[in-house]
């Protein structure tokens, strides 16, 4: 009986929303916060209702028993009066009492059932006939000067019979009790309505601010998905969970932007560095096909084709190796290796070439062990040596390349130094990227992948690769973990 109005209130509130706001309202209602809140609201309402109902019934019971006690006491008193002064005394007393304003109800009927005195004008049939010791609730109409059609009331009454057949009814109106229940009911209804309204208003504001920030995340993510990588989440500076989430997501977006930029650079470079040899390859194939009547020319063109193919394959191999090493999902097996072996073998491989080119190749190696993969580290070293031989020549004077292994503060440093022109400090980071070739080396053979591969291998070894100034020259240092 009390729940219904509350439910109606809620649905009415929902229905009152203007249609234009329905989607916003719908979104608010679909949030987890609001769903949870509605559950709490329902539970709270039910508990309140149960509490009030219990309170009401207890108070009802107390009031009823008090009224019954009053009726019984008066009945006892009237019986006493009857013993003292007979019917007449009772009639007189009742007559006077029934004229007083108040809750008391009285009626005396003669043996044939006709009312003599009292303040009741209408009673259901047979009430007066059922005399007894119990107090019953009956509807009645009070005798009054104003004829009020709505003056139907309920009273607790008890009827007793005097010796001579006269019947006396004593009762108390329960209007007070009903009024009290009504008041409590009203209060409960008001409390429930206010609770629901306040709850909805609070949740509306809370979930709107939460939604706003989540929507911002969604919006930014959508923008990034659509290709605009510049979007970032704003911070409120409160360092709440949303701020922390935003910081984390912004980091992720930054990383993504870096990766995308890297990918774009690489694909641009691939486009250039693979398309150029492919074009050359195509031209040579055409030349070989051209009917010049000169078999030697065709043959040399075909040899050029094979050379170009080989260089393309080499570029692909280097790219694949870098990709494989960089993906890092296949962790390479690092084992303790003697660096003097690796350095010795690689320098031995290159020594004749260096000798032929007039480069003095020296090694200075302390027998240090480090965690490494022999094949990959040898490849890195070979690439560094190759670079030094190609680009590390001084303009005048003898060229020198030094391979060294030194131990330093928890790391084993593997270094390749030349006495050539070196790399300007501003370019040192850039040359490690794929396909980056400095202007002065543009015309010499090479894929621009050598140092990228070294960098990738160093990363895979957990060993930083540093390019530094050997003054003069370039010194590439890989800091390996000691074994």
């Amino acid at each position, binding site marked *: 009986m009390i729940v219904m109005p509350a439910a109606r209130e809620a649905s009415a509130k929902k229905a009152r929303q203007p249609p234009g706001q329905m989607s916003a309202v719908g979104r608010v209602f679909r949030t987890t916060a609001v769903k949870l809140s509605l559950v709490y609201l329902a539970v709270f309402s039910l508990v309140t209702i149960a509490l009030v109902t219990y309170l009401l019934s207890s108070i009802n019971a107390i009031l009823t028993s008090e009224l019954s006690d009053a009726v019984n006491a008066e009945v006892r008193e009237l019986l006493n009066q009857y013993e003292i002064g007979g019917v007449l005394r009772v009639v007189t007393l009742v007559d006077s009492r029934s004229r007083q304003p108040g809750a008391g109800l009285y009626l005396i009927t003669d043996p044939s059932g006709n009312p003599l005195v009292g303040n009741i004008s209408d009673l259901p049939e047979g009430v007066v006939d059922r005399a007894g010791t119990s107090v019953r609730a009956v509807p009645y109409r009070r005798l009054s000067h104003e004829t009020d059609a709505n003056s139907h009331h309920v009273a607790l009454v008890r009827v007793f019979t005097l010796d001579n057949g006269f019947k006396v009814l004593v009762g108390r109106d329960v209007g007070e009790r009903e009024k009290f229940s009504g008041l409590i009911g009203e209060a409960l209804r008001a409390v429930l309505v206010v609770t629901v309204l306040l709850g909805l208003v609070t949740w509306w504001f809370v979930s709107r601010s939460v939604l706003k920030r989540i929507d911002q995340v969604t919006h930014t993510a959508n923008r990034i998905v659509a290709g605009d990588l510049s979007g970032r989440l704003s911070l409120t500076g409160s360092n709440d969970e949303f701020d922390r989430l935003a910081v984390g997501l912004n980091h992720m977006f930054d990383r993504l932007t870096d990766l995308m930029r890297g990918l774009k650079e690489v694909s641009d470079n691939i486009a250039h560095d693979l398309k150029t040899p492919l074009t050359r390859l195509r031209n040579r194939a055409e030349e070989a096909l051209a009917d010049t009547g000169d078999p030697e020319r065709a043959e040399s063109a075909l*040899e050029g084709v094979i050379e170009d193919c080989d260089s393309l394959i080499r570029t692909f*191999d280097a790219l694949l*190796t870098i990709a494989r090493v960089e993906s890092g999902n296949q962790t390479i097996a690092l084992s303790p290796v003697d660096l003097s072996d690796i350095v010795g073998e690689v320098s031995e*491989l290159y020594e004749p070439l260096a000798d*032929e080119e007039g480069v003095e190749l020296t090694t200075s190696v302390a027998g240090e062990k480090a965690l490494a993969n022999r094949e990959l580290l*040898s490849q890195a070293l070979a690439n560094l040596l190759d670079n030094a031989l190609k680009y590390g020549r001084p303009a005048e004077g003898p060229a020198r390349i030094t391979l060294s292994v030194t131990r330093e503060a928890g790391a084993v440093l593997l270094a390749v130094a030349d006495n050539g022109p070196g790399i300007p400090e501003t370019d040192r980071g850039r040359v490690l990227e794929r396909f980056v070739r400095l202007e002065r080396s543009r015309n010499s053979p090479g894929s621009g992948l050598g140092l990228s591969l070294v960098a990738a291998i160093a990363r895979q070894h957990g060993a930083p690769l540093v390019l530094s100034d050997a003054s003069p020259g370039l010194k590439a240092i890989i800091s390996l973990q000691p074994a």
Partner: protein
Amino acid sequence: MRILIIEDDREAAAYLVKALREAGHVADHAADGDSGWNFAEDGGYDVMVVDRMLPRRDGLSIIEGLRTKGDQTPVLILSALGQVDDRVTGLRAGGDDYLPKPYAFSELLARIEALARRRRPGEAETVYRVGELTLDRLSHEVKRGAEEIQLQPREFRLLEYLMKHAGQVVTRTMLLENVWDYHFDPQTNVIDVHMSRLRAKIDKGHDRSLLSTVRGAGYMIRDQAK
């Protein structure tokens, strides 16, 4: 030599078969793993060339099956997967050599012939001979005629490998793999310089040169008089 080629790329296989026949070998071709297995099981091949990724049955599983049966026919694995760990997987499965795609036919042919050589008796020879050049594997003595030649340890191993495969083409990659144990490609042709040094030591001052460069393929040591 009888050579079995298990390769699903028909065009590549047809080219291989044709080229091997031109080189004087007998070549059979199976286009998928199942028929490849049937061919291989019948046996009688000197060398098998197996593509790693095949329809119906994986190349490595064919090799493992053969090895389980006790078939020791030399197998060369062809694969688009060319990284060191792929190579290790291939060799562990029982392959004898591993050639990443794309490859040069001369490289493949040289390797096939080297594989077949492995089976021939003479592996345990202690002295290799090519013409008047002798190499003693135990005493590490190298002589041309009566004249002793001083070689660095690496030069010795280089010559030892060449002489073991005397009369066959040995590619630069084969030398890198077998003499230096490197499976990467040094950007510069460092091998050529080593070879010219070796050639200077063994051929200098002699009318007949034993060590020759095979254009577009590699090197070969042989007695040209024969």
